[in-house]
């Protein structure tokens, strides 16, 4: 088998894996700190991609300002989401959080379908078709940037969780809510920040992927379920477990897609999740917010 073909597949898988990781890390962070499963998480990824599409096709904004603007916008949406809906749920029922965010997801997704129809849209500008060649491997520029952005976001999250007081407080709340409260950590501030970071990462993933793949209103729906499987395989609330699982899944899916007929690649994450739950119920990397 041609080596460069395999490397090409691995590179493609890595890009997908990093995008999975951005969405799954945010989901895992929100679960770890708030114990809320955010069903609407994929819709923010979709909204990020839609916003990036409209910004880059409707305005003369460049690639980087678009990414920055969408990420900041998503973070603001996360703030509003926490204050308006999720804040009132604090410590009050897993089922209620699922149903509430499911309702939000239905509104956002079907509202987007109603407004924009399900037609896929593609960003086309000078960047879309330019490629970079590294040591015989060709990679399109938007893919390279998406990869870089994902790795940078991962590094930034690591620094925030380990080197800042706020990040340490976040891990504290995830490990033991009562103890964190007793040493004077404000759980609302911590939870708000977790939601802001989580939704911001989701928007970033959407904006980074918009120039690579077609953008359409149901893209988040299929994606978020795969992200659920990823965070369970990686261990609920375990942010780095989610990141590793996401990248591994991207690579495996890409390899399978390259060598075998494209059947049931989508099923891989779900089957993997059920198998993991049977044999290692706490996931591959164990529970708890760790990076």
């Amino acid at each position, binding site marked *: 088998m041609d080596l460069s073909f395999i490397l090409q597949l691995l590179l493609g898988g890595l890009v997908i894996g990093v995008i999975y990781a951005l969405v799954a890390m945010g989901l895992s962070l929100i679960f770890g700190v708030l114990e809320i*499963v955010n069903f609407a998480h994929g819709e923010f990824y979709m909204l990020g991609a839609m916003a990036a599409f409209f910004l880059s096709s409707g305005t003369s904004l460049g690639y980087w300002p678009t990414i920055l603007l969408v990420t900041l916008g998503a973070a603001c949406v996360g703030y509003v989401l926490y204050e308006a*809906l999720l804040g*009132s749920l604090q410590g009050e029922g*897993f*089922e*209620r959080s*699922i*149903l*509430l965010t*499911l*309702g*939000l*997801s*239905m*509104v*956002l*997704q*079907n*509202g987007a*379908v*109603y407004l924009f129809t399900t037609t896929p849209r593609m960003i086309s500008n000078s960047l879309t078709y330019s490629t970079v060649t590294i040591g015989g491997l060709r990679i399109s520029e938007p893919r390279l940037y998406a990869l870089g952005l994902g790795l940078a976001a991962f590094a930034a999250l690591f620094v925030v969780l380990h080197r800042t007081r706020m990040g340490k407080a976040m891990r504290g709340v995830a490990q033991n809510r009562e103890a964190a409260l007793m040493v004077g950590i404000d759980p609302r501030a911590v939870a708000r920040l977790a939601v802001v970071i989580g939704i911001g990462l989701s928007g970033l993933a959407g904006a980074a992927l918009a120039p690579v793949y077609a953008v359409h209103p149901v893209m988040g*729906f299929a994606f978020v*379920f795969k992200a*659920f*499987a990823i965070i*369970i395989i990686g261990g609920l609330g375990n942010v780095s477990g989610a990141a590793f699982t996401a990248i591994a899944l991207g690579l495996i899916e890409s390899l399978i897609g390259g060598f075998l007929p494209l*059947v*049931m690649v*989508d*099923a891989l994450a*779900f*089957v993997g*999740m*059920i198998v993991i*739950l*049977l044999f290692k*119920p706490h996931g591959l990397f164990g529970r708890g917010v760790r990076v």
Partner: protein
Amino acid sequence: MTRTAQEASLNADGADGGTGYRGWFSPLAGLLLATALLLVPFLSPSEYLLALGVSFAMFSVLSSGLNLVYGYAGLLSFAQVGFFGIGAYTAALLVVERGWSLWTGAVAGGVLAAAAGFAIGYASLRLSRHAFAIVSLCFALLCMIVARDWVSLTRGAMGIPGLPTPELSLPGGLRWRVVRPADFYYLIVGFAIAAQLLIYLVMSSRLGRAMRAIKLNEPLAQSQGINPLAYKLLAIVLSAVLAGMVGGLFVFYLSIVDPSVFDFYYTETMLIMVIIGGPGSFWGVLGSTAVLAALPDLLRFTTDLRMVLYGLVLIAVMLLFPGGIGGWLQRRRLARWRRPKPGRAAAGTLDAGGPR
């Protein structure tokens, strides 16, 4: 509703499972409703009305099954649509490829759905009920992917069109060719009535009370000798059998089965029916199912707009009335019970300032 209010209601109307106000209400209402439903084809030949009736009957089996699993056993499940689709595919394939009759095909569909329900329930409930929610969701998605991609078995995205008109043998050597809309109406409404009766009997028996006890306080129920896993699995398996069988019957009414029987739309719709009606309230869920099965169709909403509306309703109910209509009615009833009796007015005024 607070936990103490729920526990009080469990004690107060535990005898009829919290499903009716007085002993005579539920049997009488059920009898009247069943008679009215069975008389519809005689009174009105409108095929549109019959189609609405079939849709109500089909959804009522799904939503009452979900009510048993979520409202009684306390497990949020997304797997109902998977059971429904498994039953639909099993019945269709057995009838078309193996020449089985619809009865045996639908029963086989129910059995297979029950086996799937047992497997995912047993695997995930060892961990937690949270894991069950997520596993049930992934199970439903997996079912759709299998139906779409395992082309040699399920014929892929095209599905199996043109299912034959079923011919059923009835007791006494009679043959019943299910051709007219009224025939399908009787078939599916009849099945739904039987299924509702079964669900009602389970809910109002010891089994239902044990499930409610597990939902309210699992360690306490366990200390009374109730095995939570067995009751949870019973609820899942029972709802799976009924969903699988109604799926098997319903696709012959549609005369086609394709991967859209696993559509997330069904899950969202039956969840809304249970949430608005009130988890744990038999008549509440049946009422909201009737309204939601007919209303959007009568108002001629497009699907997108309907789902936006459902989503808004879901958010509003979760924020304002977490107990749904059934929970609201029950709270009112408890408040009436707590009001001082006329003869004990003096004691009542003293109590009025006490904690509620």
